[in-house]
């Protein structure tokens, strides 16, 4: 009986060409590998995403909670036609990007979550994702939304996305933007980078394991520091909280 | 009627100023507003230029061309550029158009194109 139920509950994935890995150099001179993630590697990713649920700045908490749900859904066979790419530096996770196929001509970008800041890892990862949609999956258009103002500035304005406001994006029903094949081809030379094939040693290191990010974004010392600063410009409440956390008392 | 950008000529010593100065930099003897307005020439040559990608909040475009132009009369000014491939020394021609839009107010300035 349970086998029949699973047949009904589990979505049937369309055939999608697997992502061909590539590599590039960051500003720091470090090499990164972008590759597709297997289902059995998802539990590792979940482990690394989970702490970001509590980082209350730059919309990390919103993005991380949605990514967590998407990855878990993918892992448990409750999400149709999703792909997950990992960006790794020396095996260490630097970013996760994911998206899905709506139909053979239309893609949908889900998220870009960067664990390493200051090196435009997110920009590289997003471009890799778009390249995958157009060059390998054969889509003519990709629907996109942005949760963070940084994302909006980078993608909507830099790429000059077209408005598709009549299409509610599944991430909260907000009006969608679209990257068309024409726009992508125009932007391709400046925005899509990376080389193929990946040198064997680099690829081997990346495929061996997804190592934990060494310097991920962490919650502020005071868990409500980010929000509290908005309402308490003198920061005294913040200071008192911190003292309590440090165990300081009033006794002489 | 075409709009103009004005320079200010001191009535005492004829020194030209753009932008406006309260005290004439030539003679320093002028009285308040003792200047004549003189329209700036619109033709000149491009001294230097840039294409700006990181724009302030009010601009909804992806990039903005800016340049410093040496006008026919030797004075210089900053203007927006509507030029695909600017080059130092290239002759340019300006018109006065809207260069900045704010809620309830538009600002006019010189926009230069290849002459």
């Amino acid at each position: 009986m349970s086998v029949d139920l699973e047949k009904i509950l589990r979505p049937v994935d369309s055939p999608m060409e697997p992502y061909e890995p590539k590599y590039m150099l960051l500003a720091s001179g470090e090499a990164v590998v972008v590759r597709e993630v297997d289902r059995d590697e998802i539990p590792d990713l979940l482990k690394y995403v989970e702490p970001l649920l509590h980082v209350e700045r730059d919309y990390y908490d919103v993005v991380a909670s949605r990514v967590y749900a998407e990855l878990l859904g993918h892992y448990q066979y409750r999400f149709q036609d999703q792909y997950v790419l990992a960006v790794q530096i020396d095996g260490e996770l630097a970013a996760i990007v994911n998206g899905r196929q709506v139909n053979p001509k239309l893609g949908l970008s889900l998220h870009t979550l960067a664990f390493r800041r200051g090196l435009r890892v997110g920009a590289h990862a997003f471009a890799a994702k778009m390249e995958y949609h157009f060059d390998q999956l054969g889509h003519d258009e990709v629907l996109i939304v942005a949760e963070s103002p940084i994302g909006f500035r980078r993608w909507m304005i830099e790429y000059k996305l077209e408005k598709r406001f009549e299409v509610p994006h599944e991430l909260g029903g907000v009006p969608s933007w679209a990257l068309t094949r024409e726009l992508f081809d125009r932007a391709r030379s400046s925005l899509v980078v990376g080389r193929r094939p990946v040198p064997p040693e680099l690829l081997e290191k990346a495929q061996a394991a997804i190592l934990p990010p060494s310097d991920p974004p962490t919650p502020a010392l005071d868990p409500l520091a980010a929000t509290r600063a908005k309402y308490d410009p003198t920061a005294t409440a913040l200071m008192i909280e911190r003292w309590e956390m440090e165990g300081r008392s009033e006794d002489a | 009627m075409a709009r103009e950008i004005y320079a200010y000529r001191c009535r005492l010593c004829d020194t030209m100023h753009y932008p406006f100065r309260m005290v004439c930099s030539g003679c320093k003897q002028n009285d308040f507003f003792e200047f004549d307005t003189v329209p700036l020439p619109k033709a000149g040559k491009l001294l230097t230029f840039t294409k700006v990608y990181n724009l302030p909040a009010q601009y909804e475009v992806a990039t903005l061309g800016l340049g410093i132009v040496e006008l026919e009369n030797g004075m210089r000014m900053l203007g927006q550029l509507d030029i695909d491939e600017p080059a130092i020394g290239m002759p340019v021609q300006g018109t006065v158009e809207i260069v900045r839009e704010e809620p309830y107010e538009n600002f006019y300035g010189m926009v230069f194109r290849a002459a």
Partner: protein
Amino acid sequence: MRDVYVAGIGITTFTRLEYALSEIASYASMMALKDAGVTEVDDVYVANMGGARVNHQTALASAVVDSLSLTPAGAAAIENGPASGGSAIKAGFQAVASGMDDIVLVAGAERMREVNNLEATDFVATLTHPIAEYIYGVTLPAHAAMFARLYMDKYGVTERHLAMVGVKNQNAALNNEWAHLQQEITLEGILDSPEAMTNNPYVAEPLRFFDACPVSDGGAALILVSKEKAQELGRPLIRISGVGQATDTHAVFEREDPTDLLAVRKAAADAFAMAGLTPEDVDVAELHDAFTILEIAESEEVGFFPKGEGHIALEKGETALGGKIPINVGGGLKGRGHPVGATGIAQAWEIVTQLRGDGGTRQVEDAKVGFTCNFGGFGNNVVCLTFVRED
């Protein structure tokens, strides 16, 4: 005129801070007060550019003097664009040198990240000429870019030279625990590799991402005292020996020669003249590298190298730690960060640290004479200072 000494210094980490602007200023000030060993001052000067516009805080010095329990001392906020810090030091210097005050607190702070990047860019752009520049959408990077293009055309400076300054200063910041950026970069990553254009995109051609300093929050402070007070407090004797300030036309296009920074030239010359020193006497310098091209241009205008040869000296490594004239060994604005009001004070903080011998892994050996250049507007208001160690 009496001699003026720096008896205490303080600084916050330059990064994104969640504290209010007055807290940032007070934090650094408290460090400086403790360093000097004083709890009372005669006057307080607080340098800041954006308080009113970005942080909804005016009369900043009045907030700080009370927060530090320094009332009823006099207090005033000083706003001079990016040269606010230098101007605040000059004001404090004049107070002590004139004999009017014996102990002065000079602080600087900025909290730019209270608003997003687009608003921050616009706020800094308000220092440009309102009718002839601002309305065109000009930004500080745009000015620096147009200046850089002329420099490249006239003197043969290339994008590679600009990148070299960026790499030198951002990597130097790794030796400075207070610096904003703690990320190593390489020339290959930002210039040579096929991915360089994405790693290091144009901000305003020809300036790229790593040619510009980051947007930072932070504060720094100094305690300036008379000689008697300095000896009484038993602090190392670091004297401000020269102060120079000069201005130039507001609109950049009105400068006599658009590749000259005359205000830098005059301010530096005046500071050296007052101190009885020449550029050759300087052991360690802090120049205002809000954009990499400015470090090259300033190194020439202040007199370290002949005009048009700054990039050649850079190539030879003369401006790195261990070179002929180490510049920005603590990261400069590029690596340390640029909370606008705090920068002028932070430059002095670095020099005093060096002259005291507390520079750690970035210590310039046997530094006796230091120099700072705080560049306001786009080169139309510059404050230069010289510092000497008196053993």
